[in-house]
């Protein structure tokens, strides 16, 4: 199921401003890749180019190639809607649909894409909620509004919603930054389970989290305000956190940054 992502020469712009400059990297399937780096260095922007969510922002555009297995996401005749079905995304702030119940939230991706079979949907809802470690907490109140859950539960609901459409890749943009440590732990455990099925890319500001959950870590940096963000290095998490090849990475990780 999981796919490999091969990025080469990618630039991302907001209007005339280049936010991300010349990034090339490979994201391995069935693994967790963490993006770390200071605020504004383009981690989230780069993440959003991987499922063509970047261009949703007015004036935003992308140059370069993103190969998903062998298909270039920015090639001709590629449908961004189909890309987003294949590459799911979880956002920084939990954002369940406020008009929908818990069940409808999880089923939203399927229903809005035309799946009518009730049995199929019910199965997918249970499977996804179990997959997101939320089933036991909500199985008795599936028809209650999704916005009534706690923040951590809402975030797991959003993860369930994202995996219900069975994507190949799951992008997570600081999924734990709005959560308490217990909910964070629940989500980190979940990431550990999900990587057996999905290719996972996670942006995080929490270095311990990157060290705990990821197999590979990419460090991003920018040379100054108004300068584009760049990929400094990507390597196995162990190597990045013990013996990085670039001095800036070590400075950032050990807190001696700037």
């Amino acid at each position, binding site marked *: 199921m999981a796919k490999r992502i091969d990025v080469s020469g990618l630039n991302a712009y907001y209007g005339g401003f280049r936010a991300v400059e010349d990034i090339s990297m490979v994201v391995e399937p069935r693994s967790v890749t963490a993006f770390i780096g200071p605020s504004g260095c383009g981690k989230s922007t780069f993440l959003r180019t991987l*499922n063509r*969510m970047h261009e*949703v922002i*007015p004036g935003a555009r992308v140059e370069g190639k993103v190969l998903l297995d062998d298909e270039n996401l920015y090639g001709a005749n590629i449908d961004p*809607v*189909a*890309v*987003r*079905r*294949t590459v*799911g*995304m979880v*956002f920084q*702030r939990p*954002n369940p*649909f*406020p*008009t929908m*119940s818990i069940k409808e939230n999880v089923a*939203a*991706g399927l229903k*809005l*894409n035309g799946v009518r079979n009730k049995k199929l949907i019910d199965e997918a809802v249970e499977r996804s909620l179990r997959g997101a470690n939320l089933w036991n907490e909500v199985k008795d109140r599936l028809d*209650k*509004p*999704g*916005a*009534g859950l706690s923040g951590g539960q809402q975030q797991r609901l*959003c993860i369930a*919603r*994202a995996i219900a*459409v069975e994507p190949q890749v799951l992008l997570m943009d600081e999924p734990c930054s709005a959560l308490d440590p217990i909910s964070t732990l629940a989500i980190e455990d979940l990431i550990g389970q999900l990587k057996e099925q999905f290719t996972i890319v996670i942006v995080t500001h929490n270095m311990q989290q990157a060290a705990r959950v990821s197999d590979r870590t990419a460090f991003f940096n920018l040379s100054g305000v108004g300068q584009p963000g760049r990929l400094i290095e990507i390597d196995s998490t162990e190597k990045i956190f013990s013996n990085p090849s670039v001095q800036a990475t070590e400075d950032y990780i050990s807190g001696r940054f700037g």
Partner: protein
Amino acid sequence: MSSLATSSRPLGSSLTERRLPRWMPAANLVLAVLLGLAIGAGFDLSSKLQWGLIAAILFVVIQYVTSAVVEGRRHAKNYLATSLVWVAFLLALLPLISVLWMTISKGIGVINANFLTHSMNGIAINQDGGGLYHALIGTLEQVALASLFAAPVGILTAVYLVEYGRGNKLSKAVSFFVDVMTGVPSIVAGLFILSFWIIILNMPFTGFAGALALAILMLPVVVRSTEEMLKLVPNELREASLALGVPKWLTITRVVLPTALGGIVTGVMLAIARIVGETAPILMLVFGADTINMNPFSNPQSSLPLYVWTEYGKGTDQSQARAWGGALVLIAVVMILNLVARGLARWKAPKGATR
């Protein structure tokens, strides 16, 4: 040590302070009202409004002074602001209540089953009886037709402006003309339809022609309010939906519009409330009638505001009573529509929003 404690607390060493007793504002109010009445009676001011204003000003002043003396300036300022807010609130309420009271007291007398189910067909101006059934039917049909045009067009325009246009030249131009249209007087909308629909296209005077003019008046209000409501829908919801691989049009119809539905319904209701009392275009285009005409597409109709206007103009006691009855029914219609819309909005509103 103690000097350190006092110096770190320059505003006073105690957390307790002298406060006015809780009954003091009420007592001040009573005092102010009594004083206001005394001054009003003493100087023989004819208008009761003046008595009330004097009492209100006295209340604000007395409250400020007592509080300043006992509690200090900060609390006095707080009371001043609070009192001003209350006075403004009551002043705003005053005309509202007096209009309602006037309409109810003068109109309730003629309201009965006969009044609501009969037309003015064959009723002389100084005769009792008669009713507004024809006008009620006219208003409901014309407003329904106008909403049928203006609500979908307005909502779709707002969807374009917020979801697709996003500040491009076309959307800016549309936005500008919507603002201009908001200020179009109803008589101008009426004249436009009169010259275009009735004089150029040679159509008859009908409820439908009136509905066209009402739709023109309603459209900008619907667009503007829907636009504001759509802007309030968090971008995160759109992104969440798009990231699930949901196409944009489905995202709009299934996620964005339902989330904003309560506000959109309220906006449409406000627009209806704006047009339901319009007289000028109805007078020009629907022409008015004393008989029941259920068909808005042929022959003149009446409407409630037009009914009020013609009945009041007849000048007899009986017809003026009918005019007040018509006004009361008009207010009731607007209120019922509002309640229904609020019910709808609550039923469909985002659930369990704890944030």
